[in-house]
């Protein structure tokens, strides 16, 4: 028995096998490539999404364009007037939405506009935005909402 152990320790001169190293690195790279969101836009409005039951998932992320509606986040945790944000810019004039969305529609004809609307917003501004979307021809929309907590 003792000879057996001795043999083993004497024989081995272990070193880290490098053969699998590239595979591991590749795996990690692929993993991070898949999960990383490249440009995280800073959302300048508060969007506390409403809760709903009849939810559908949007699997094709590349079709989705986000619009944020909600009270403007100010300093000291104060909230301002309800504003609209597309990508990383606040929209001053609602009638400019039609041009922005029309250009997006030309790039992606199957565009889905996901409206991330704060639950405290009033329907007035939501309707105005929807009228603009109709003008632009981006008719597929999605009222982004969170699943209900049971």
């Amino acid at each position, binding site marked *: 028995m003792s000879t057996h152990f001795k043999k083993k*320790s004497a024989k081995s*001169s*272990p*070193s*880290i*096998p490098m053969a*699998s190293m590239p*595979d*591991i690195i590749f*795996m*990690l790279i692929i*993993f991070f490539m*898949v*999960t990383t*969101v490249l440009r995280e836009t800073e959302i300048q409005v508060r969007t506390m999404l*409403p809760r*709903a*039951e*009849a*939810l*559908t*998932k*949007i*699997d094709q*992320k590349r079709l*989705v364009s986000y619009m944020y509606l909600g009270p403007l986040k100010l300093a000291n945790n104060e909230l301002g007037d309800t504003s609209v944000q597309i990508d990383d810019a606040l929209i001053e004039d609602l009638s400019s939405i039609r041009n922005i969305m029309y250009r997006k529609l030309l790039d992606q004809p199957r565009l*889905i506009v*996901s*409206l991330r*609307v*704060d*639950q*405290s*917003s*009033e*329907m*007035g501004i*939501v*309707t105005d935005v*929807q*009228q603009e*979307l*109709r*003008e632009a*021809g*981006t*008719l*597929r*929309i*999605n*009222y*982004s*909402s*969170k*699943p209900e907590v049971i």
Partner: protein
Amino acid sequence: MAGLLKKKKEREGGEIPTASMADIAFLLLIFFLVTTTINVDTGIGMTLPPKLDENQEPPPVRERNMLKILVNAEGRVLIEDKPSGIPRVRQEVKKHTLNEGEDPNYAESMAKAVVSLKTDRQTPYDIYIGVLDEIWMAYFEMWDAEARTMGFPDYTTYRDYIDENDEANLIRNKIKAQISIAEPDAG
């Protein structure tokens, strides 16, 4: 005992066993894969009506085929001009759609049934979503019931099945979710 210790010291350049390296890496990978949530957007999908020409009238809908749901600025719900609540929306929509001409106040047929949702400009968004959610749930429940009569456990299974086999969606052709979002009155 002393000899054994001595022997151990003599062995120089002791190295870390690396056979399990790959396993550890895989475990880590699997752990992160499982725990990372890749944000999937969920929500209620709608299709807006296309823009109408100035002189083009919206298509006429008979009064009885339209279930009118009104939500006012305080978030109170009127169904066909009767005060109601959000929980009642679901059963009213189902009753309306599945009426098939029985009750003269509800729709003539499934194909003609339309649900109209109208809000005030001051209506809170979450109330609006609450009502819209109930309307969609009514349709989901009707689709589920229809799928069961066709021998599927639920509508989702049916939809996956037709996606695979590239068949037409018979359930949605039969029970169309015709929801009309009316423009709120100015005020």
